[in-house]
């Protein structure tokens, strides 16, 4: 029995951490906002490609690293910490595995092109800045940008590059599994949460009011302690769900839903605590906190909102309120 990341996985994760610390600073995240320096985001994606991150779940024969879901969630948690802009979770968990035999794969793995994922709704995150849209709804189709009618939609986190997509791509003869995207989003959320806690801890140690660092007040200490509890108890559920995906566990859907529910709710609560602990400075766009908070709000609802997940879990746990009289 051993629960956790192997030493090898830890090393890989630490490598991702080191690379992202340089390649994805808050300035890089801002570059993905409207009016930002798009080339900076392109360079980041090139670096992600070089790192092999985009092919973590692609067979080695197809040019990927094939390191499995555990390494993938560990890496995506780090990506969340850095706030990597663009469809990273989607690329790692859905696009690259689904296009494993497609001619575009080398460009995808190198980070030269970015592919958004559409799962039903007209509005597709990252589509406004993507080169293609993978349409997964019943069958799987690939819609390249030239064939798509895109209409950008303004969002709270403007780096989400939401756009309505009209158009039907060319069918691909493959299946797509969306559970890994849900789980990858959970991991990314916990990275975002950890980043917000780190920013907040640094701030409340430094900021003085009433003659002392505000971090000495229980009114800030105790909610921040709860934020630690939130992230620490969600992460093992993400790891467990990753292992279930790796094992093909029949309860994988249950485990992924639990992981995403815990991550969505934990990360959302953490974002509230951190914003409040900052006071007014956190409520400005000049300060970095909002970059991570807004992404948190969006992802908490994406790939399964808490309400949706609870409803799925109720069914999986054989609780069916609607069937009652």
């Amino acid at each position, binding site marked *: 029995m051993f629960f956790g990341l192997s030493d090898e996985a830890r090393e890989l994760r630490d490598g991702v951490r080191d690379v992202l610390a340089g390649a994805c600073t808050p300035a890089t995240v801002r570059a993905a906002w409207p009016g930002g320096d798009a080339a900076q985001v392109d360079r980041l994606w090139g670096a992600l490609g070089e790192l092999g991150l985009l092919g973590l779940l692609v067979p080695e024969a197809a040019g990927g690293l094939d390191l499995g879901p555990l390494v993938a969630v560990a890496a995506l948690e780090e990506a969340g910490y850095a706030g990597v802009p663009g469809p990273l979770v989607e690329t790692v968990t859905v696009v690259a595995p689904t296009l494993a035999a497609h001619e575009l794969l080398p460009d995808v793995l190198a980070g030269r092109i970015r592919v958004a994922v559409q799962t039903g709704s007209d509005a597709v995150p990252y589509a406004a800045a993507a080169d293609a849209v993978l349409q997964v709804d019943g069958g799987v189709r690939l819609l390249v940008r030239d064939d798509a009618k895109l209409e950008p939609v303004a969002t709270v986190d403007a780096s989400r590059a939401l756009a309505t997509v009209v158009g039907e791509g060319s069918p691909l003869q493959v299946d797509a599994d969306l559970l890994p995207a849900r789980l990858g989003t959970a991991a990314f959320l916990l990275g975002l949460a950890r980043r917000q806690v780190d920013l907040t801890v640094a701030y409340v140690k430094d900021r003085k009011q009433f003659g002392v660092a505000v971090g000495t007040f229980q009114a800030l200490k105790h909610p921040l302690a709860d934020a630690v509890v939130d992230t620490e108890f969600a992460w093992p559920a993400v790891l467990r769900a990753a292992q279930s995906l790796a094992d093909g566990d029949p309860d994988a859907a249950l485990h992924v839903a639990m992981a995403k529910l815990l991550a969505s709710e934990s990360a959302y609560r953490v974002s509230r605590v951190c914003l409040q602990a900052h006071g007014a400075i956190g409520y400005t766009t000049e300060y970095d906190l909002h970059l991570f908070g807004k992404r948190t709000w969006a992802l908490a609802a994406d790939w399964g909102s808490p309400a949706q997940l609870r409803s799925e879990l109720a069914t999986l746990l054989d609780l069916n309120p*609607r069937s009652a009289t």
Partner: protein
Amino acid sequence: MDLRETAEEAEFRAAARSWLAENVPRGLPSGDTREGFALHLEWERRLFEDRWAVVSWPEEYGGRAASVWQWLAFEEEYYRAGGPQRVTQNGIFLLAPTLFAFGTQEQQDTLLPRMAAAQDLWCQGWSEPGAGSDLASLTSRATRDEAAGGWRLDGQKTWTTRGAFCTHLFGLFRSDPQSQRHHGLTYFLVPLDAEGVTVRGFSRLDGDEGFAEVFFDDVLVPDDAVLGGVGKGWSVAMATTGSERGLTLRSPGRYTAAADRLLDLARAHPGRLDGSLCDRVVQAYVDAEAYRLFTLRQVSDEQAGRTRMGESSLNKLFWSELDIRLHETAQDLLGPEAEREGPWSKGFQFSLSGPIYAGTNEVQRNIVAERLLGLPRK
């Protein structure tokens, strides 16, 4: 207990409702952008022209001498009609009560009509980079200049809402350089076009340029820029902060209208009312009503001479948290659509500032515990 409106009150409400139905603008952009602010000013001036800008003020200043009950009714009708948040609120709801209480006749006669008419646009200058929750630690200073017959202001204010679009600022400056904490402060009224004032706008969470930093570099203001007496600044300002936390700034009509919109949203998406969402919609309605009833109780008690120190902190805690819960519920009802820009996501982001501005909720809880429960300070 008498919950019936008098004939006079009912008539006033009906007049307000019918005027608002005809005049409230639709689809105004945010008043916290430069373009939006200009459009809001048109609306504020339209309100003034027909004497709906400051209903509770005396008629000579452009008001209708409305009772507090009439004012509450106006607010209710205003938000029910979809009226936008008032960009003049910091003058009308925060400075004006202080001017009525502490201003000289001349200050009142000069400043109030221009404020009501949205000619002078007032912003608040409380916080400083080192003085937020700990307001008494502020360091911006006022130095007496006998020769010039006035005061010279130096220092920096920040988190000044809509400061980049306003014309005047009210705020506290340390007029006694030897003083500590809340002693030796003076309340000043400062035109932002005075020489030596620099205003830099910056963006709030929702991306609007809603904040400003205001820098004072040897800014000369005359003696009548002082409100309420030299060195009296703290007690004068506290009268205003009570208004800010309490009823004046956040009348219940705002929340009952928001709760009604939430009910409409929920009714439009019955398929999403599974699980706890239905309960949370119900709770938002109940909470908005609870706030309304609390304020009715509060006004009645005040009129009967029963007031308590620290009670406005109860308002602040309740409306700020109710506002967040209400908007979180709306966002959760919208699900993945919640991330789109729109009235609900805008309102959600704004609600998150509620526990921060007007004195953080942490400070309010200290006040409630110490003043209303008598718990020891330290």
